[in-house]
């Protein structure tokens, strides 16, 4: 059965979050290009930060879309976001330095087509559907591109399809040991898809507060960065990967502690090993 979804009012307006999310993730993804310019790999973690910013924006979009009574549709919204996004991101990656911008344009087109299909063919008739799916596809593209850039140190396609493996003591370039060839992109897809839907899915209800939901979105983003940082040890040098891991762990601990504090603030009561508090007047 479907449960009516209620969301809290107030907080930062959605359009403001949209602008911060779009510009912020674009700038942060371009900061990973410093790797190519300075010929190091220390800036890979900026890709993960771009994903965190994109996820914050995506969470607020999902909240707007799903306040139209899509209870079980919250996880599906995450899936379609990353599904459209991964196509945009991989297409964009082939265009070199323009990759993030091309990814945004391609993802926006895919998202808009999906929105038109959902509204006019499936007849869901949700007013914000087309805009929301367009935003979600862009968020998905930025998340995939950001986390992939974090794993292999670059957002360019050539870097994603070549990895180094050691055979008989010689370092050999192969497709099998790369981010795409090893299907690490599938892990990134699922990390993003669960992270983007989880915060609103976990916080929905009449007591939903925007700051708590967004803090959880940041927590999910940093949590997704941790395994990507560990995987990146297989692709980039030891020290840059360690820097990425430290950034993710510190960010995760901070947001997790903050999120627990916000939950404590919003909870009816915070009890440890106490019996059921039956409401006055009985059930």
């Amino acid at each position, binding site marked *: 059965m479907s449960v009516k979804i209620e969301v809290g009012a107030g907080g930062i307006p959605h359009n403001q979050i949209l602008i911060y999310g779009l510009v912020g993730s674009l700038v942060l993804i371009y900061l990973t290009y410093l790797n190519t310019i300075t010929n190091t790999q220390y800036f890979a973690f900026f890709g993960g930060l771009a994903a965190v910013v994109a996820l914050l924006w995506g969470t607020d979009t999902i909240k707007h879309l799903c306040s139209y009574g899509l209870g079980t549709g919250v996880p599906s919204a995450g899936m379609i976001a990353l599904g459209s996004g991964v196509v945009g991101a991989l297409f964009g990656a082939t265009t070199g330095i323009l990759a993030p911008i091309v990814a945004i344009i391609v993802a926006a087109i895919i998202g808009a087509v999906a929105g038109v299909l959902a509204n006019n063919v499936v007849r869901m008739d949700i007013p914000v559907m087309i805009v929301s799916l367009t935003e979600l596809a862009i968020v998905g593209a930025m998340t995939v591109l950001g986390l992939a850039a974090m794993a292999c140190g670059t957002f360019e396609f050539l870097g994603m399809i070549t*990895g180094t493996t050691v055979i008989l003591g010689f370092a050999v370039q192969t497709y099998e040991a790369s981010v795409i060839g090893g299907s690490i992109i*599938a*892990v990134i897809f699922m990390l993003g898809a669960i992270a983007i839907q989880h915060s609103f899915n976990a916080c929905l209800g009449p*007591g939903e507060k925007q700051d708590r939901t967004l803090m959880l979105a940041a927590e999910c983003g940093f949590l997704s960065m*941790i*395994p990507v940082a560990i995987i990146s040890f297989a692709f980039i040098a030891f020290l840059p990967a360690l820097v990425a891991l430290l950034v993710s762990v510190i960010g995760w601990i901070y947001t997790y502690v903050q999120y627990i504090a916000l939950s404590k603030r919003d909870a009816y009561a915070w009890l440890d090993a106490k019996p059921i508090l039956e409401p006055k007047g009985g059930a």
Partner: protein
Amino acid sequence: MEEIVFGIGITALAGALATVAGAAEDTESDIGSQGDPNSQVQLAPQMGYIHRIFNKAVAGEPPAYGLWVALGAGLAWAFMAMQINPILAIVLGSALAVFVQGVYATTAYLGRTASLAKFGQPVYIDILKSMTTVTMAHAFVAIFTTVAMCHLMISALGHPFPLPLLGLVWGIALGAAGSATGNPFYGKERQYQEQKFGAGVPISASGNIVRYAEAGQRNSLDNGFFSAKLGGPASGICFGLIVFFELWRTVVFEPLAAGWGAVIVGVIVILVFAIIDRYIEVWARKTFGPYTAPEEASS
């Protein structure tokens, strides 16, 4: 011939691993009231039934397990690429994936419960402390066995997919098997024992879940105990059979008709199971039928 015997052996081993995975998966998700039992646990406080049941809504089970297993497989793949022994790599990858699962579980419970403050549902911290660890332990078993099974398919049977992609596919299949097979046991046989047998779940009974145990108050560990007895093994058999038949038809019939043999046998297996399912459904409807009032004892 020797190759086929070896393949059948690996098939049986993979099926056994899958059976363990299915049983652990369903127990894990039922302790967390994930999947379809979740809607009633979520609804209960809104209807005035304050409870001490763990409510970890991460997503449906198939996407959630798609992530946990793909993550375990991806990390194991990366560790193997760093020249770490496969067994150690799979253990480390599964352990890290379970860490992510545990964090998601705690944030889901805190978020859902804090948003229900209006209805007087408190956050019980002891639920987090005692049950998150239990779900993590079951999830570890499910993830480790599934990733090990995927690794067997690649290294012993020569499956062409890379480990993380195979993990994603089988993780979604594992979640789907547990969700479809195991949850009805928990939902209908455990959550709704407050209702009379055969009464169904009318709208007025929505959210009226079992909150008190034979002695004291029920929490999700009791549900885990129940699931480990019925729903878990049923899900295990389901997922084990899926994996076994999938590999068996490939290993034995692949050489026939340039690979089409395996496809044809796959279709036949599906048809046979559809006939069996239909027979059981009709038999159950005839035997247990629609609910009728018990006949009055004549005086």
